[in-house]
């Protein structure tokens, strides 16, 4: 009863935000968001009582996972020609859904702008946020979120049109900069220009699509956001070769999925699905060969795929073959990367620091034991 009233207040706040964030394009899933939150209220709220994972129970009772993703970030979360959600963040949520239900399609994607994402998560609109979100101290502590790890080591970059004749961010003094509101990049931008004694004029936008439109119309000289998103945006432009992502990276942007504070068990599930995908790449387990590891002598693989005697996944309330299903859904971390961001996707982002530690990167999972 108390919780219901509280979530109604939050809902009203959220409605206000959604209405204010309605852009020229009508937000695809706003209606769904509203309906789902009403369902949550009616269904009673006891999500913060701790102990056993209440979120997991809710997800199981509902029959699908609610995953907050970007409203359109090429490579991370977009909708393909057939109307299917695709992307790096999308595939992570599918792996999580596969781990819980054995079905990678048992997930509903909720498009969230950068401005509403944390409120939506806090209000229980989504179970998990996989929305290229930077892990920072204040988000972790003050915003009461739990980050599950890093699934992409990113950094903030700048994209310019080649005919602007700019080859370095240090030549951008006096430029007009398109920037998404409510992001860490907004703060980095202010700090970077100040540090270097340069001035700029911010043009605030709500999401990637709007930034892109403003940038193409020439309403800003440069568009700044995470470099991965810039690469993803650039390939989808009409003439990608007319645009240039400047070499400087001005910040650390470790992106990762996150859940709200208070349900550690649920956080563990999300964290270890991510780790499982990373370990699978280390061990060479792929979507194609996943069934051929039954006779391996590597005990960790048996624990991971649930082919051994131990059922350590019962500790978090998942079926024994949960991680098998998760990896089977979209492949290991490397495969997901290649399909959405790497050469196969056409975006052609190098693995770089996002390679496994065995291959010179910094991607390193704790042992599955």
């Amino acid at each position: 009863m108390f919780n219901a009233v509280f979530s109604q207040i939050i809902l009203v706040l959220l409605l206000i935000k959604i209405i204010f964030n309605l852009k020229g394009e009508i937000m695809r899933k706003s209606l769904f968001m509203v309906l789902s939150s009403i369902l949550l209220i009616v269904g009673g709220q006891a999500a913060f009582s701790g102990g056993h994972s209440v979120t997991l129970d809710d997800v199981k009772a509902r029959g699908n996972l609610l995953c907050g993703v970007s409203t359109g970030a090429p490579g991370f979360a977009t909708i393909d020609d057939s109307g299917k959600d695709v992307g790096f963040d999308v595939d992570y949520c599918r792996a999580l859904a596969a781990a819980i239900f054995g079905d990678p399609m048992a997930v509903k994607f909720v498009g969230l702008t950068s401005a509403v994402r944390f409120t939506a998560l806090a209000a229980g609109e989504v179970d998990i946020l996989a929305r290229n979100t930077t892990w920072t101290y204040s988000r972790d502590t003050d915003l009461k979120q739990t980050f599950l790890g890093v699934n992409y080591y990113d950094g903030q970059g700048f994209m310019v049109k080649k005919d602007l004749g700019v080859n370095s961010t240090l030549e951008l003094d006096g430029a007009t900069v398109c920037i998404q509101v409510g992001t860490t990049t907004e703060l980095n931008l202010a700090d970077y220009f100040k540090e270097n004694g340069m001035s700029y004029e911010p043009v605030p936008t709500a999401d990637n699509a709007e930034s892109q439109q403003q940038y193409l119309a020439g309403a800003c000289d440069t568009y700044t956001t995470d470099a991965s998103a810039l690469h993803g945006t650039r390939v989808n432009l009409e003439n990608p070769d007319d645009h240039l992502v400047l070499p400087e990276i001005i910040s650390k942007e470790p992106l990762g999925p996150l859940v709200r504070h208070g349900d550690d068990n649920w956080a563990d599930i999300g964290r270890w699905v991510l780790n499982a995908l990373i370990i699978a790449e280390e061990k060479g387990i792929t979507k194609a060969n996943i069934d051929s590891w039954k006779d391996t002598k590597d005990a960790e693989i048996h624990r991971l795929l649930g082919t051994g005697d131990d059922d350590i996944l019962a500790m978090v309330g998942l079926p024994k073959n949960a991680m098998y299903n998760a990896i089977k859904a979209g492949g290991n971390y490397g495969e997901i990367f290649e399909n959405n961001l790497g050469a196969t996707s056409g975006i052609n982002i190098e693995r770089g620091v996002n390679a496994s530690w065995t291959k010179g990167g910094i991607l390193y999972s704790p042992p599955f034991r």
Partner: protein
Amino acid sequence: MKASAPPKTESFKLSMLLSDTRYRGTSLQVITFIIFVAVFFWLVDNTLKNLALLGKDVSFNFLFLRAGYDINQRLIPYTSDSTHGRAAFVGILNTLLVAFVGCFFATILGLFVGILRLSKNWLVAKLMSIYIEGFRNVPVLLWIVMIFALLTEFTPAPKAFKGADPQATMLLFDSIAVTNRGTYFPAPIFGEGSFWLLLSFILSVLIVIFIKQYANKQKKETGKSLPTFWISILIIILPTLGLYFLIGKPISLEYPYLKGFNFKDGIHLRNSFLALTLALALYTSAFIAEIVRAGILAISKGQTEAAASLGLRPNKIMNLIILPQALRIIVPPLISNYLNLTKNSSLAIAVGYMDVRGTLGGITLNQTGRELESMLLLMGFYLCVSLLISSVINYYNRSFQIVVR
């Protein structure tokens, strides 16, 4: 609230509080008040408890922390080192600017359209109907977004002004630049001696007002109209202009010029501001036009006919007979339109205009995660502004209501 105390002379029974008509009204009010306060406190207490469960407290300290973000349109000095409170204040000023400019143009436009819609000229009347129906029946958010899109898509980028043979040129002797980042106007620079110029201008205006009053008095006493129009214009322009050259042109214009990526100097009206103000003014003017029309139609036709039979010309009838009476009907609903415009300005975020919704309710809310506090402050702000506007216009309204003698 001890209004239900019994009179001493009669014997008092507790049941009389509800059964006796002398006490019933008061006791019901007291009961309602107590219930209201209880529910209110329960809601507040419940919210606080649940926030505590989430591990959140209610605190407004964030207003004194470093904001860290930049705002493009600032009417007061602001940097990323300023506080969130100051950022909110920058936003408040931006909101008030849009509201003020929007209301101003909406009123003028609405008055014209409303009067013209009553024109006997078929074409003019129909055009005005189309104007009103067009703007009134499309959500204002769409108008804002569309005007913004038009401004950014169909105007040249500053780059187009570059080079020996530029694609775009500035208007009005190279003084105004219309770009897809906004329009740049020359800015006046007030040099030494501007003060005397201002003084002479104010004096001229005062003299004109005095002449006007004298003319009105003459008219009341003798019935003759004095020709004041041209004299007034001369009095306003000549002395100030003469002084301007005498002192040595103290006011100069600072022209915008292209430097680096953008135009520098001059007054920069950003497209976000232009689109928002224009859309709000056009949209609200359609409503005001209808109010004006209703006000005029409400004045009995006999008044017009009586004035005409006195030999007054149509525009004198409008100015002297109809409008003064119609204003009494027009002003009260006008207030709600001003309030609507002010509140609609919170749609600013759609075009990235940094009003108070954009700074306090947008970026600050997001960076600090203080949803409840920010929203409460926002609601408080809009409430105060709305009440202020109503009270000012109500005061104005009272000043020309019919005085019953």
